Structure formats: structure tokens, C-alpha cells
């Protein structure tokens, strides 16, 4: 009986229509209370569930909430509540499916950048709680160690890192909401190019950095767990295209690209170490 009662009660909580058959079924298993009707009692739970989801999502996605306005955000949160069951007891993971969900809503197509701003905010949210790097290496020492056999090593991004390749200026848009440029009349240039972004935490500070197009393939390669040799190749190609280092200089015994390009990644906190493959 308990399982059936809980199933019916839960169905009533998620029913779109507050007078729908799921609500009527659940209410039929209740007695009126001295101070509350059955509908009022169920309504308290339905409202609390919907408001709680809206508040939780607004904490994770504050800029998304500003972009669409509070009424629209609440409506989308209520749709999400019904369409995307929360499969984890951990409330901090409640927004994990939100970016893909808003991306799939046709009525939000005019704010096509919304999903990527959501991905950026989700990255910031998870960076807050993500562990720090287990080991941080000195890039010089690591470079020497791996130069012997770059096929056998891989670089490590911070455990908190999220990479976002957006066709929209998602970071610029997010930053305009942080420094309140939006309140001073700032508007998004529809012709603005897309942005490649890394979100990560260095000690207690959370960063969202724009990545130069030349460095992006290297970060993607590291993120995919590819060997250092691959990143050497990419860095060497970059140098070659810039005319400073010939492609022929890139070989397993040559660490010129790694000591120049990869060092930048370390200095910025985008790479925190390396490990054997």
C-alpha cells in the first residue's frame, strides 16, 4: 500500500493541471484536515516542489534567469521539473540536464545563446564543488620528464575544468551581466564571433577564461586524454603556421613547442600537471 500511495502522491505533485486526474486520485486517498482542504494540502506540496526547483535552478543559472526574465524562467523551470526527473539525491546536480533542455525548447530559439550561457554557468557551479588537483607539477620539471617519451605521458586539466566551444559570445554576454553593463544599455552584437571558453578553479578562485583559437585544439586534445606527443604536434603546427618554428622541429626529442606554448597553459592554470598514460 505504501508504494502505491507514494506513487500516486508523486504523480499528483508533477501533474500539470492542478485539478487533473492525478491530483483527484491522490486527493481521494486523503482526509480533509481541520484547517486545510485536501486540495490545499496537495497544493502546498505542489507549490513547494515547483518553487524549490525554480529557486535551485536560479541559484545555478542566475544569468539565464536574467536573460529570459523571472516569469519565463519560472515557466521553463516548471516544464523542466516535469520533463527531466531528478535521478540524484544530490540537489547540486539538479541542473545537469538544464542546458540541453533549454536548447530543445522551440519557443526559446530567439535566445539561441541561452544554452551556452547555461553550460558556462553549470561549469562555474560544478567548479565550486570540484576537488582541487591531486598533484601539481612544475612545468619545467615535467617537460624534462616527458621529453624522453611524450607518447607515454598526458597532461592534466584541473579536475574542475569545463571546456565550452560556443558559436555565440557566451563569455562576453555572461561578463556583461557580472559588471552590470547590461543595466547601462549594453546589448549583444548579433555579428559577434563565437567564443571558446575554459571554466576552472585555481585554489579558491573560479575563473572563466577566453581561449585563443590557436590554443583551443591543444586544450581539447588534453581534455580527450591524448598523449603529450599529440599536443606537441599541435603546438608545433601552430609555431609552423606562425613561421617561428619549422614543423621539422617537432619530434619526440624536441621540446621547444612544449616549453613555450604549454608553459602558457600552466601559467594560466589551465593545465596543472601530467601523468603517465
Amino acid at each position, binding site marked *: *500500500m*505504501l*508504494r502505491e*500511495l*507514494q*506513487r500516486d*502522491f*508523486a504523480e499528483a*505533485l508533477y501533474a500539470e493541471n492542478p485539478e487533473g486526474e492525478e491530483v483527484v486520485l491522490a486527493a481521494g*486517498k*486523503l*482526509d*480533509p*484536515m*481541520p*484547517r*486545510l482542504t*485536501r486540495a*490545499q*494540502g*496537495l497544493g*502546498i*506540496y505542489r507549490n*513547494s*516542489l515547483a518553487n*524549490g*526547483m525554480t529557486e*535551485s535552478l536560479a541559484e545555478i543559472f542566475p544569468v539565464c534567469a536574467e536573460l529570459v526574465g523571472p516569469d519565463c524562467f519560472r515557466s521553463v523551470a516548471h516544464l523542466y521539473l516535469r520533463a527531466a*526527473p*531528478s*535521478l*540524484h*539525491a*544530490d*540537489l*547540486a*546536480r*539538479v541542473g545537469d540536464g538544464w542546458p540541453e533542455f533549454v536548447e530543445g525548447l522551440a519557443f526559446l530559439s530567439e535566445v539561441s545563446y541561452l544554452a551556452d550561457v547555461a553550460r558556462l554557468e553549470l561549469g562555474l557551479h*560544478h*567548479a*565550486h*564543488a*570540484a*576537488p*582541487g588537483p591531486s598533484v601539481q607539477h612544475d612545468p619545467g620539471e615535467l617537460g624534462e620528464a616527458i621529453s624522453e617519451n611524450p607518447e607515454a605521458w598526458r597532461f592534466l586539466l584541473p579536475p*574542475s575544468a569545463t571546456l565550452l566551444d560556443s558559436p555565440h559570445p557566451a563569455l562576453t554576454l555572461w561578463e556583461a551581466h557580472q559588471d552590470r553593463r547590461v543595466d547601462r544599455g549594453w546589448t549583444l552584437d548579433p555579428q559577434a564571433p563565437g567564443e571558446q571558453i575554459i571554466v576552472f*578553479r585555481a585554489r*579558491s578562485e573560479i575563473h572563466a577564461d577566453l581561449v585563443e583559437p590557436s590554443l583551443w585544439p591543444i586544450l581539447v586534445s588534453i581534455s580527450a586524454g591524448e598523449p603529450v606527443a599529440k599536443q606537441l604536434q599541435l603546438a608545433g603546427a601552430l609555431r609552423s603556421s606562425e613561421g617561428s618554428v619549422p614543423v621539422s622541429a617537432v619530434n619526440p626529442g624536441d621540446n621547444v613547442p612544449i616549453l613555450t606554448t604549454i608553459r602558457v597553459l600552466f601559467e594560466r592554470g589551465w593545465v596543472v600537471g601530467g601523468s603517465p598514460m
Partner: protein
Amino acid sequence: MTPGTRHEAVRGVGLGLRSCHYSELMADAGGVPWLEVLVDNYAHGDGLPLQSLESIAERYPLVFHGVGMSLGSADPLDPEYLDAVMVLVDRFEPAWISEHLAWTSSGGRHHHELLPLPFIDESVRALAEHIREVQDRLGARMLVENSSGYAAFRDSEMSELEFVGRVLASADCLLLLDVNNLYVNAWNHGFDAIEFLRGLPAERVAQMHLAGHDDHGHYLIDAHGTPVVEPVWELFAEAVRLFPGVPISLEWDRDIPPLGILLGEMQKANAIMTNAQAITDEATFHAP
């Protein structure tokens, strides 16, 4: 700190830890004796929230309070959630851990809402089985809290008081008596809160909660966003008289005010406790 000293350190009126008060608490503002940690806020990852809690734990005795265990669900406990809680218990060694007499998940779906139980034998058995499972993992008794409820199931076979008592006895666990929840339920469901207090097994009352509620005219909602109201203070005074020496914590979860406001509420609770103790002492002194 050994398990025995951890329990002894949790005395008097403590406070529910909220992140907006970290810095003041780290500066030892207000002489808060112990803190109640909402364990769900720290069960996600191993980053900044846990670093902050490490610092807090160096200064304050802690107890853990949870909302996501779903002790009253007809489904098994979520092993992933339970493991996460146990990792935190091992790491921070709280004096004890408490959860709600409620369910928050069903059919694999987590509702993130404390939902009401029918007062039936099957609910008692489900709760007792889950509580014993947690206690086996802990190697100690846990506390369960009387929840606020806004639904009365037609199939209920007993009163809330009998239900709570049977769960405590079946699971051999302890009670976190939420005085505000009791007041809200007594008002909404129409029963006598004092009678409820007097019917509880005093030897199992191990902690109390105080909080504010919202008054919606005909009914009340346990909202934790306002000061404790006078009738709840009066009920609390009776609870303190019946269950002397039980530690109390103040909860405030919405529109969280500056720490000074909470310290004022804690002082009021302390004054009521002190007064109750003085009356008890006087009665003992004059006893023939």
C-alpha cells in the same frame, strides 16, 4: 575528540550552519557553542564547501542533519547518497546524525521535498528497516525528526504521536523533536501539542529544533524564514521542562538574516532553558 566527548560538547543552544555566516563564525562571533550542519550541502564533490567545513570543524563541535535520505520511502535507501554521507561522517566525526520521518524519493525519482507518510504499520516497518540500516553503518543510534505535514492519509491507522513512538521503539533510535513542526502540525491537524509532548518517550528525546513558520490565516507552513513566534516559545518552554538538558538548535533557511538576529533568538532560547532549569532545581530543593 572521542565519541563520548563529542556528545558532551554538544550542549545548550546551537545554530544551523549557513554559508553566509562562515566568516563571522570563523571569527568566533557570538560564542555559538556548536553547529548543526546540513549534510546535503556538502555531499557534492570535494571543493570549496568542504574546505570551509574543515575550517569550521576545527573550531566547533558539529552534528549532522540531513534531508535527502528518504527514510520513509517504500524503495531501498539510495546507496550512492548513503555512501556520500558516510564519507562525511568518517571525515568530520559529528556527535550524531539526524534525518526526517518523511520520504523524498520514489520510483527512482528524487523529489527534493519532505513528503508526508501515512501513519500505518507498513510505514513504521519501512522507516525502522531504513533507520536500522543507517545505524548499522554508523555503529551508533541516529536521530529522527518529526516532520511538518499538510496531508492526512485516509488509510492512517494511528495518531502521529503513536506513529513516532512506534518508529522510535522499532528502530531503537532517538528523537529530534522539532517544536515548530509540532506546533504547525497541531494547528493544521487539530491536536493538542502539549499532550503530544507529554506522550513522547522522554528518554529518547536527544535534540530539539526551533524555527519560524508562515501564517497563512487558516493554516501554517513550516518555512524557516521568520523569527520563532510566541506560541512556539511557550511550547518550547514546556518541552524544556519535560526534557531538561536536551540540546537545541535554531534553524533559519530562507531570507537568512545577519548572525546577530540569530544570536538574539538563541539568547531567548537560553533564557527559557535557564528559567526551566531554575524551576526544576527549586522544585527539587523543596521536595520532601
